[in-house]
């Protein structure tokens, strides 16, 4: 079951776990960024939230909360766990909860408020030290998701800024571990929190090492210098699998790699005819978009570039996620038809376009770009590829300077609706393709307020419309590939494995956290 303990194997006598990570957090302040930055990954063993979700993403377990009640759609009553201590010895109570949410809404110093949480909460009422009531500004179906996200910190730290977390003076949590050292660029060290309420964890020490070079990280896993790592380049998987003492896990995700197509404009900045003259934007014609989609062999890309460690994407959402529509058929490559469609649309000789994408942000993104360009070249389109470093890419991306632009979004369940809204609504900030469909606009206005079951159905409709209109070009859904020394650690498959949440997947925290 989910509570299986990890055991140190004979080979590694020390109760030490070393995890290799390609990225390093920018700060240890668990509240600083909530948008997929890595500190979320390092936080969970140190800080706890009110609630906690496991792999299936559906079941909710209370963590610092004991239970909750929703007397009405905009009121959340929460009973808090008693007798919990922070690692500095102070007791956890309702004031810490209020402090934590206040800090999110109105961060100290120059911090940026986390608007969607701040806006959702009208005020928090303290009934007694172990009971709080969240009064929401309006009914918010996904609100519990916010509670899963927000780490609780101690109100003793007062006006502490990220720097105080970084030097560890404010890094005080209720979790099973505490951070004992952060050597910038090198490692973070965790040791058991002696004041943790549950059973003491198994590892006497966890070291999170930062190893940005993939090949070197893989070598370190092979040599046993690290025990666990993620983002294993798919090409290395076969070799690692055959190595003794190393196991590989791949977990599907809802991160889609897709392209925005410039649909909204009469002419597009990077599309010309083959002599370089500006032409009316061909992407406005659905037939052209379909031709582009038909020309892409998604399975081949997944097989050859990702070694099968990805899922071809024919619609935006991955299976099992809000908005996934099982009735939409896969798209089968058909170059003949693609050519036919192009010439029907009036481009028998094709045209010229530049494909823009990031360089090195999403694993093999550069290779994917080139592979797609090669596939389009085969239906008669002159494609050039411009892969830009992330620092340069997003500015022009937002300014709609591209015609066909790579994007990616790793959806967390509760974020799907807002993201879809801003991406495909006519007035969405992220709608850089300029796609506009009144039907979708109407649906997107309707969905947020709808109850969650209703949302599921409506989102499927949205997906179907987008599929039909070819508003975006999904390519594949990403998979997280982890490797670990099976002779040293035991993997707990029930844990939510997102991005870098390795700490949670391997050193399993105390029992009472996972049992409600």
């Amino acid at each position, binding site marked *: 079951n989910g509570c299986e303990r990890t055991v140190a194997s004979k080979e590694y006598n020390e109760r030490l776990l070393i995890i*290799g990570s390609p990225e390093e957090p*920018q*700060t240890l*302040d668990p509240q*600083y*960024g909530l*948008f*997929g930055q890595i500190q979320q990954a390092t936080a969970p063993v140190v800080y706890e939230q009110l609630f906690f979700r496991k792999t299936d993403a559906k079941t909710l377990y209370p963590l610092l909360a004991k239970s909750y009640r929703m007397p009405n759609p905009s009121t959340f009553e929460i009973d808090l766990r008693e007798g919990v201590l922070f690692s500095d010895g102070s007791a956890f109570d309702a004031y810490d909860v209020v402090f934590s949410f206040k800090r999110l809404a109105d961060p100290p110093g*120059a*911090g*940026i*408020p986390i*608007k969607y949480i701040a806006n959702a909460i009208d005020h928090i009422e303290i009934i007694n030290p172990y009971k709080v009531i969240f009064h929401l500004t309006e009914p918010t179906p996904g609100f519990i998701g916010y509670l899963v996200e927000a780490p609780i910190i101690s109100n003793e730290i007062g006006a502490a*800024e*990220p*720097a105080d977390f*970084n030097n560890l003076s404010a890094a005080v949590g209720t979790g099973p571990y505490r951070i004992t050292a952060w*050597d*910038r*660029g*090198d*490692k973070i060290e965790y040791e058991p929190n002696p004041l943790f309420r549950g059973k003491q964890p198994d590892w006497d020490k966890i070291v999170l*090492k*930062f*190893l*940005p*070079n993939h*090949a*070197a*990280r893989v*070598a*370190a896993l*092979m*040599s*046993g*210098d*690290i025990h666990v790592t993620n983002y294993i380049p798919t090409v290395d998987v076969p070799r690692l699998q055959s190595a003794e003492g190393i196991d590989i896990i791949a977990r599907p995700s809802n991160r889609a790699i897709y392209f925005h197509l410039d649909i909204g404009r009469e002419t597009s900045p990077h599309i010309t005819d083959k002599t370089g003259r500006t032409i009316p934007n061909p992407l406005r014609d659905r037939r052209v978009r379909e031709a582009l989609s038909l020309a892409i062999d998604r399975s081949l890309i997944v097989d050859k570039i990702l070694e099968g460690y990805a899922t071809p994407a024919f619609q935006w959402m991955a299976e099992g996620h809000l908005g996934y529509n099982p009735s939409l058929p896969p798209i089968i490559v058909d170059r003949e038809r693609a050519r036919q469609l192009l010439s029907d649309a009036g481009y028998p000789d094709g045209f010229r376009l530049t494909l823009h994408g990031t360089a090195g942000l999403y694993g093999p993104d550069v290779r994917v770009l080139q592979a797609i360009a090669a596939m389009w070249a085969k239906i008669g389109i002159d494609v050039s590829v411009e892969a830009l*470093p*992330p*620092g*340069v890419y*997003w*500015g*022009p*991306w*937002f300014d709609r300077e591209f015609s066909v632009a790579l994007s990616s979004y790793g959806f967390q369940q509760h974020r799907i609706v*807002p*993201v879809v809204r*801003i991406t495909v609504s006519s007035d969405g*900030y*992220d709608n850089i393709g300029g796609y506009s469909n009144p039907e979708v606009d109407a649906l997107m206005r309707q969905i947020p307020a709808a109850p969650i079951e209703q949302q599921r159905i409506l989102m499927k409709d949205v997906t179907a419309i987008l599929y039909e209109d070819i508003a975006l070009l999904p390519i594949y859904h990403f998979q997280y590939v982890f490797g670990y020394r099976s002779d040293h650690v035991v993997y707990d498959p029930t844990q939510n494995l997102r991005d870098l949440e390795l700490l949670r997947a391997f050193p399993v925290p105390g029992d009472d956290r996972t049992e409600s």
Partner: protein
Amino acid sequence: MIGALARKTLQTASALLATSFLVFIAVYLIGEPTALYDPLIREDPERLAALRERLGLNLPLHEQYLRFLANLLQGDFGESWVYQEPAVMVILERLPATLELVFIAMVLAVVLGYPLGLLAGLSRNNSYAAFIERAAIFGYSTPTFWIGLVLIYVFGVWGNILPTIGRGESITILGGEWSLVTLDGLSHLILPAVTLALYEIGYVTRMVSTMTQETTPKDFIRFARAKGLPQKRIVSNHIIKNTSIPLITIIAIETGALIAGSVITETVFGWPGIGKLLVDSVAALDRPVIVAFIMLTVCFFLILNLVADLLYTIVDPRLRQPAGGTA
């Protein structure tokens, strides 16, 4: 003397000013990083405005610059946009790791490269001299990541002799963390230092060998031989000094260049140095860190070059006098 010092200071200050300005413009031209820090920020214009205001990006460029200068006068380089800590602290924290790496690499380069270069330069027609020369070429031409990966493979995966990743135990001296002084730290240092050093050893070897070849036919070396000086005295008393000016130059440049330029080695070995920090900061357009970093390296180079200039005059007495005036 005072005048010379004042002039140097003035030069340094204006160099720094010019650098900060250049970097400011460069980062401005590259783009605005707000979207990097928070991909969904556009969703919320209010938050975007708040972020821009916090970073000072709402002001016109010249005002941003003036504000930066004003803070600079109080010794404040600003706070890192990414790390939310004083930029200087972010850099200084990682400096020791890089310094010790560079130090070891340069020491290796001189300690090994100099004798090898002399050996190759003095006996030009020997087979081992030819071998040294050719090996030196490979030393400075082989891509760093190859060397790094091969070393990791050989000493880590295969031989399992040396630690391949990260930095070892360190001790705090003068407010910095130094791993050079512990055994564990030293063992961690070996592979990355060797990786960096191979290039430098090749470079030094080649330079010394060439300069030795150019020096030996000179009259004063012939006269020294005619005096009956033993070869090693000729080398130590005459050749070394006469080959040293370009060597001082390249050592000064390379030391400085390594400080910012050991990114690849740092990346491969997971070494927590500032080269990687710079690359990350440039990628994240973290202007305060970039500006502080580059100003720091400018200072570093100015100092290195000052030292080099001083060494030139120590080596070559003819440089001590102001140039013979020409009418």
